């Protein structure tokens, strides 16, 4: 299929536009989503094509408009709500956790909530402690929700289209530092199933399991490791739920060493869950304990050198991987 380079933001926008053309029930609801196209300009142009009835600006009421989206989804629309910064999901928790996640189950399968929440994660934007967190572990914890973490423009388009077509509430986390990342994206209609991991780079000596922008960090670290003669495999689960446990475990069995990378807080986080899945599934094939690398257990600081110290980098991942493969 014809392919061109798009930025991550353009890929997200293209997925939304294609789905809105395909299905008149799809609408966008959020703060400054229409003429402003959000502060990240991800949605620029959509209101011009689809009108203000389908690209709906809201007051600053995350709980309110998320609740409206839940009810709209139950009654025949397919809303995509925009939560500008992932930190603001705290304001939507009752609507997502107690309402959206449970309506299908509690009703014995009668009601469905086909909605998507798009939001952001990721530090190092100098936005301080309330605009920099990666809180996707919280939603991953709750049955009834699905959680998507695209790491490339290609994945962003294909996964978002699948999320919009899904009959369940799906939370789609975009790393705001990746919006300008470019990559090949087909012009055609394609989808990527939820729950299928992707081996982003094949290797033999160590597996780097990474999510979202940590995939890019892992790929960078893999190049540094290659110079040291260490062959790293990079596995991207792409969704924390549903979770492709088999691909993670198979890779761990193949390389015998694993580092799990995720930008959320480490304590009780995504890295803990993925490491446990791998330890349970590949224990007797491992040559070292599974290592976890996540955000430091501190509120994200504003001061640039402090903030940079809180998240894994190519260099810190490289050093950790080298130490696992070549113990001194």
């Amino acid at each position, binding site marked *: 299929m014809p392919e061109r380079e798009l930025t991550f933001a353009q890929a997200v926008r293209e997925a939304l536009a294609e789905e809105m053309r395909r299905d008149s029930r799809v609408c966008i609801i959020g703060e400054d989503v229409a003429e402003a196209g959000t502060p990240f300009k991800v949605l620029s142009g959509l209101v011009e094509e689809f009108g203000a009835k389908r690209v709906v600006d809201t007051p600053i009421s995350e*709980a309110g408009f998320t609740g409206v989206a839940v*009810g709209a989804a139950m009654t025949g*629309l397919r809303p995509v709500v925009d939560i500008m910064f992932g930190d603001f999901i705290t304001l939507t928790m009752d609507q997502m956790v*107690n309402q959206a996640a449970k309506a299908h189950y509690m009703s*014995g399968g009668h009601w469905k909530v086909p909605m998507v929440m798009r939001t952001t994660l990721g530090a190092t934007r100098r936005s301080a402690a309330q605009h920099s967190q990666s809180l996707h572990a919280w939603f991953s914890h709750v049955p009834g929700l699905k959680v998507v973490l695209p790491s490339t423009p290609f994945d962003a388009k294909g996964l978002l289209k699948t999320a919009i077509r899904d*009959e*369940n509430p799906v939370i789609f986390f975009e790393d705001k530092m990746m919006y300008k990342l470019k990559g090949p994206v087909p012009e055609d209609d394609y989808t990527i199933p939820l729950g299928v991991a992707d081996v982003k780079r094949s290797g033999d000596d160590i597996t780097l399991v990474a999510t979202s922008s940590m995939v890019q960090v892992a790929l960078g670290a893999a190049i540094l490791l290659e110079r040291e003669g260490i062959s790293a495999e990079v596995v991207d689960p792409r969704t924390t739920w549903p979770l492709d446990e088999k691909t993670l475990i198979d890779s761990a069995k193949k390389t015998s060493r694993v580092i799990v990378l995720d930008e959320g807080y480490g304590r009780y986080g995504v890295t803990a869950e993925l490491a446990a899945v791998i330890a349970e599934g590949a224990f007797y094939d491992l040559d070292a304990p599974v290592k976890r690398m996540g955000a430091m257990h501190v509120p994200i600081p504003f001061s640039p050198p402090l903030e940079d110290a809180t998240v894994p980098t190519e260099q810190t991942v490289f050093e950790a991987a080298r130490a696992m493969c070549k113990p001194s």
Partner: protein
Amino acid sequence: MTTATSKPQAGPKPAGAAGTEKEKWLHAYRQMVSIRLFEEQVNEVYTRALMPGLAHLYSGEEAIAVGICQALRVDDYITSTHRGHGHCLAKGASPDRMFAELLGKEAGYCRGKGGSMHIADPATGNLGANAIVGGSVGIATGAAFTAKTLGTGRVAVCFFGEGALGQGSLYEVMNLAQLWQLPVMYVCENNQYNEYTHYQETTAGTILGRAAAFGIEAASVDGQDVRAVNEVATRLIERARSGGGPAFLQCDTYRYSGHHVGDINREYYRSKQEEHLWKTDRDPILVLTKWLTERGYADAASLDQIASEVRAIMESAVKFAIAAPYPNVDEVEKHVYA
């Protein structure tokens, strides 16, 4: 107490009403008695330890659910509360499947997975009862958003108790509903008590003042008078249906029982004398009985006949539910995802 209600009088027929005035109010009588006797059975089943979990009875508040649902179309939406049995019945749910749900049986509306606080039924537009106080305000407003977007002509009614006035999300969605002129009616069932605390200790300002702040059309009504409730609800619902925007209806009422069935010793927060006054002077079934008999629409014998028919239905529903099987344990992982 605010009572700005006009006296019920002849007017346009509510959308849900069929037949003559006599038939309409005898039907309302039957529905209110159904709710009262349903709740009596719940109390009985619960105290016999046949019902697991919690039971929050609607007794005393019947005129609100019945008066409002009588003004709705079958395909109109409602959202309900933890005290929701009355709303479900008034919207058309059947007592046997409700009791089955209350006992956690597979024949229940939610296959036993929801229980008393989560009965939902798409066939009657019931989006579900909700055990988070104020938890369904977004869902009801969202249903109205769909109705307006798709032009279906449906209206959503959001039932909540006055305890939900303390929840911020209510005001977020009221703001949205007025901005977007959504066909939703917020119904505040003011039964006086936020669980074990009188609402005046928890509620600054006035209830209707909250709606006024958003410019939402608002009214208050004697929630013990089903005809008064129906009249004002019909006006507000048809106004919303025809594009006039959202409405807020305060219904003053009284919860006959405790917060839940186990709340027996209540004197520390309300007196027996107060309970007695509401039950004798302002009982919604007695209020309607008086009107029906004064109009010559019914007499004691005909009303007794209705009550005994309803009682038989409720007893049979309980028997059905007790005999019904529990869901198979492999059901536990079904319906997590659609």
